[in-house]
């Protein structure tokens, strides 16, 4: 295991870039009326302790390829704002109650207010991208927009896939379906596009930019699977969300998919009935029973192995992309983050 001090070192770099991005995000939030149900709330999620993977990867990639923080800060700010907008809406869609250690906006203020706050964050994220025009020029501004457009579109498509599985109570989902869903829902916007934008901003060109796709997909998949694992076995204080919340929600994680493909027909039928029950009518006994089955059928250890293999593949891609670059804090940070993705506890 990595020692705590080494984790701290990596977390310091993450925190440094996260602070840059969050300070910038907050600077774009209007300080005016209507405050009570809008502008006082748009800063709620950004102010909570987040990991800052997206701005971290965006800024670090830019710097590793010879760019600087300033040139990529507006794009990183927009990505972080889009991310916070996604979180607000995601919590409504999933009926989640806790986010980053506090009550979700939907729980505290209701769905209507929360939807509007998410909308506001989406729209406000356009401004920093517009301002790229003055520092990056029209063509690069357009290129960053096309990256962001693809990023946002993929995320909502991925989200639709997952919500569709829940709405139709889809049971027979294959691993391939899951991998496609997380590519669309998570990987493009958590890893691939932040790194692509950091790279193209640094070198001023889109040449070879697709080399980040594989790296980002492997790393993003490892990240998402680890996230699903933490939901089952994490510490609620560190993780910030409800433990076993994904089972309560009926979320189609790799662990649940593995279980559904390996349990007995009777068990599958009972799980199906559970998933077909509205969340408010589900009970803790059934949730714990499903968790026990996940252990019985080694679904948790299977997902852990998949995350490790994907992280290993990400390491291989890392060497291809970053291997020839001169040593730098940012280059090493990105390498270390691969391991952190699968060993993190929050």
């Amino acid at each position: 295991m990595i020692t705590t001090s080494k984790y701290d070192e990596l977390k310091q770099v993450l925190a440094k870039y996260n602070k840059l991005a969050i300070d910038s995000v907050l600077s774009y939030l209007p300080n005016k009326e209507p405050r009570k149900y809008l502008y006082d709330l748009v800063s709620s999620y950004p102010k909570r302790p987040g990991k800052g993977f997206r701005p971290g990867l965006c800024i670090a990639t830019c710097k590793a390829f010879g760019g600087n923080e300033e040139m990529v800060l507006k794009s990183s700010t927009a990505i972080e704002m889009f991310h916070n907008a996604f979180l607000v809406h995601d919590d409504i869609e999933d009926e989640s109650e806790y986010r980053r250690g506090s009550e979700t906006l939907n729980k505290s203020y209701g769905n209507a207010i929360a939807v509007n706050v998410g909308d506001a964050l989406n729209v406000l994220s356009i401004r920093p991208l517009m301002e790229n025009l003055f520092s990056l020029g029209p063509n690069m501004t357009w290129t960053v927009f096309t990256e962001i457009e693809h990023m946002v579109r993929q995320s909502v498509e991925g989200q639709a896939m997952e919500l569709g599985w829940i709405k139709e109570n889809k049971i027979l989902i294959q691993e391939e379906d899951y991998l496609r869903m997380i590519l669309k829902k998570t990987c493009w916007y958590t890893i691939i596009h932040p790194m692509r934008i950091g790279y193209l901003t640094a070198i001023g060109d889109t040449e070879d930019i697709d080399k980040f796709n594989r790296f980002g997909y492997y790393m993003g998949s490892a990240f998402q699977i680890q996230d699903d694992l933490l939901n089952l076995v994490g510490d609620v204080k560190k993780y910030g969300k409800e433990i076993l919340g994904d089972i309560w929600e009926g979320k189609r994680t790799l662990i649940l998919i593995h279980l559904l493909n390996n349990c007995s027909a009777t068990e599958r039928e009972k799980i199906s009935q559970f998933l077909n029950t509205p969340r408010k009518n589900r009970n803790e006994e059934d949730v714990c029973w499903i968790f026990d089955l996940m252990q019985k059928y080694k679904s948790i250890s299977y997902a852990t192995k998949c995350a490790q293999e994907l992280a290993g593949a990400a390491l291989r891609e890392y060497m291809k992309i970053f291997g020839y670059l001169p040593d730098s804090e940012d280059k090493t940070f990105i390498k270390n983050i691969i391991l952190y993705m699968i060993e993190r506890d929050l």
Partner: protein
Amino acid sequence: MEKSKGQTDFKTKSFDILSEFANSTSKVVQKAADILEEEVAAGVIAAKQVEEIFVKNNKASSDQKALINRFRKDAHELLDVIVNILDVSIKYGTNLTDKIISMDFNNKKGSNNSQTPVLEMPNEVKPGEKVSADMTIRNEGDKNITKFDVFVTELINSSGNKIASTAIKFKPVNINLKPSETKKITIEVNVPKNTAKGSYSGLLQANSELKFKAILLVNVV
């Protein structure tokens, strides 16, 4: 061996294990690689094609309004906002010599808003050489404009390199314009020999009453 101040490479057992995974053939990784290939073929390439078409048309099209309208069609609301910004950049960004800049004393807002236009010099310039372009201005108001003058700040690129404002000249100065009258101003940028390559920009501003502001963009190659 990657080592640098403030960030230690994790030379740990965990990385060794990951390296072993990296060298093994994993089913889940192979599945992921196949899915990515399909998705990239469907998505990124399509996006790239759109981008290439845009850049190509941006350079070649004589009817840029039509291009923008084509992008607007079927676009998402957010994209519409994006397109508005690009519209500004196209109108002002690539056709400095063709663009007529309207001046009106009665319009106090003028161009002094968030959509500050970008005036890009039409030709790239090498260090030690000069580049010039004509800017056409027109009095759209019903009063005479007297002693119209333009000022510019120093130009700066994304690495912090600068071109002093004294290297930029406007001819003629102190222009008078009757209502509906049009005149040309030549902007001349003398790029110093030791100037680094890059895209330089600075704020260009007319007499305060006119509220005209723009970003001047010079590409040094």
